[in-house]
């Protein structure tokens, strides 16, 4: 479960990146976070994961305050950043094992999970190579695997489908669905409206730091009276600026 209550963030005292944000993402749901470039998606995700602090307001993950009890809050979620170019000098397996240690995963659990995940993402042959030798999609996959190794109940993913091949993208979507149906929370940002349309239980649309809409797709359709496509609604909401 993710809660954001009256969250504000201003950069350099001027630019209001997030304006009095309120969101509640329930257990068991896949939540899509939509918005044009520069709308405040990444800022929100950075605050959610403790990368940056918020100016005011409260953020809770599974009921644990990110600001007051950061380490416990950070153990609740797994985070897939939008840029997978990280730890390029480590081997895939070294990175996975590093993440296993950081999240205190037992040796037997991590071995099972590494085997299972590398099978599923077709990374078995690449694990002993350095991440630098990976393609963009493979780097994306190893980061996702590193996150899933501690089996967090809350998944936070920033543009997770970018650069994935259709098969891996399918696998990831499947895994997101499985995860949510076990009563866990999946929160992800995306530009790709079709993904959101097919996958999400609920979506929020953010622009200029404000939530313009939050609810199910059905509610959104009612809101806009008719059988419009998500794309059209999205463009209407965000003022067709991009």
């Amino acid at each position, binding site marked *: 479960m993710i809660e954001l209550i009256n969250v504000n963030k201003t950069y350099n005292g001027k630019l209001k990146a997030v304006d009095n944000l309120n969101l509640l993402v329930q257990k068991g749901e896949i939540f899509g976070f939509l918005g044009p470039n520069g709308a405040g998606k990444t800022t929100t995700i950075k605050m959610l994961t403790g*990368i940056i602090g918020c100016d005011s307001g409260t953020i809770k993950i599974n009921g644990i305050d990110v600001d007051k009890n950061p380490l416990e809050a*950070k153990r609740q979620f797994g985070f897939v950043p939008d840029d997978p170019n990280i730890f390029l000098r*480590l081997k895939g*397996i070294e990175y996975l094992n*590093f993440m296993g240690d*950081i999240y205190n995963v*037992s040796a037997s659990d991590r071995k099972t999970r590494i*085997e299972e995940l590398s099978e599923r993402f077709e990374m078995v042959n690449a694990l002993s190579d350095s991440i630098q030798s990976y393609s963009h999609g493979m780097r994306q996959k190893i980061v996702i695997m590193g996150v899933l190794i501690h089996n967090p109940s809350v998944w936070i993913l920033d543009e997770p489908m970018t650069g994935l091949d259709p098969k891996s993208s399918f696998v990831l979507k499947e895994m997101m669905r499985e995860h949510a149906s076990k009563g866990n929370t999946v929160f992800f940002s995306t530009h790709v409206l079709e993904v959101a349309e097919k996958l999400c239980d609920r979506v929020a649309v953010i622009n200029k730091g404000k939530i313009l809409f939050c609810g199910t797709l059905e509610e959104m359709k009612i809101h806009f009276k008719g059988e419009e496509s998500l794309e059209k609604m999205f463009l209407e909401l965000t003022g067709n600026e991009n």
Partner: protein
Amino acid sequence: MRTNTFLLARVLLKGSGDVSQNRKKWILWSILAVAFLPMIVQIGAFTSVAHDVLKGMNIENIIPAIVLAITSFVVFFFGIFYIINTFYFTKDIESLLPLPLRPFEIIGAKFIVVTIYEYLTEIVVLAPVLLVYGIKSGGGILYYLYSAIIFLILPVIPLVVSSLIIMPIMRFTGIIKNKDRFRYFASILGIVMAIGIQFVSTRFFSSNINQDKIESVLEQLESKISTVTSFFPSAKYAAMSLVRSVDAVGILNMLLFLGLTAIIMAVFLYLSQKLYFKGVMGISETGSKRRAMSNQELKRVTEKRAVAFTYFLKEIRIILRTPPFFINCILGNFIWPLIILISSMANSNGGMNFKQLGSIIRQNGDNGLILAIGFAFSAFLASSNNVASTAISREGQNMYFNKYIPLGYNKQILVKVMSAVAVGVFGVGITLCFVFYLIELNVYTAALIFIASLLGILFSSFTGIVFDLLNPKLDWDNEQKAVKQNFNILFNMLSCIIFSGAFIAFVFIMGLDIIQTFIATILIFGTFNALLYYFVSTIGVKLFKKIEG
């Protein structure tokens, strides 16, 4: 077309420096100026003396030829490294290749960038000599005009030569396709060459030169100069134009110099079109095997480790495997032992050697200064390995990772300090072993120095991370920038010099013996370290939290 080249050169130059903050840039320039000024003055003064001596022998006109030959060679030598880095191993090339630019426009722009780097070399090596020679020989306006032209144009041919060595290697051989491996190789080669030159020059200057020998030395020198100038023929014309700047021979030689440079540049641009793009495409960072691990292997590599240790291992692995980090943080540790070894060999037939030093120390066995100096040396050595003072900067754009993992900032900072201490102990350890062996120090003194040096290493690691926490340099696109163009390294070295210098002065003034000095080290730097520990785990953590990755 030409504007494309200059436009691109400007962009590339901007990308290589931190131009966003002009104030910072000025600080950097002033520090560089202060650092090189003594050398420039010295070279100028030496030229003045040399001019007088050579004038007595009526051969002072040899000076321009010598300095232009030397400059050409230095430019050529640095050029090899600049060319490899600027032409092949920068990230920008991947974004330049798809742009609708003709090859020679890209090469031209990169060539201009490298030439501008070389002007910095020339300011130190060439400018003072030309200026002093001009004053001494009473050169007119034409002399200074020619000098300015030569200053601007001279690097071209040596750089073409270094490019023509590098480009075919990159085009036709696969050995340098692996960027990382090559950089290790090049840096080690560079160090070996630098030390080799040092060795030869120590030998050369330490052998007693008397009046009789000078002429034969000069003769030798002259033949060497002519070898170099025939390798860089333009230098000969340039030198001639300076010597005869008053008459038509000067103009003729100047025109020959410019003409030759232009022809060679044109040929180079033509050739590089054929060589450059194919060589630069497909440079991969590393090789890969793509092989599945056996069950046993997997079990072995997925063993559970303590969090602090695994984080420590990550730090060390990244330092060892990233060539710029390795070169700046690890390789430096080997330079001191090598320099000590070579100077002990070079001085074996004269002058003060280590054995004599050792006996002086033994005669003053209970003097605290030896310990204070050993301590200061260790602190300085540890600060110069940059591990702590770039610990945050090295994270770069990936700093955010450290913010979302469930590992306390306090712990992360301390592990970073510990990795600096580990590298410091390694570097100081091997250096001290060499020194102790050469000066035949007794085990008791050696042990005291080593224990005291641990506090110095810890001190410099703490101060290093404090500087980096205060002002981390995270915005880089090239790993080299994190560990080279980083002020925190300089600040940390300065602070170590100040603190340990003050400590030496303190020991000297108080006239402490070795045990008293040892106790003073423990008390003073123990307290400092405790305070620094407190600082990083309170304010340091707050600073870490503020860094927005």
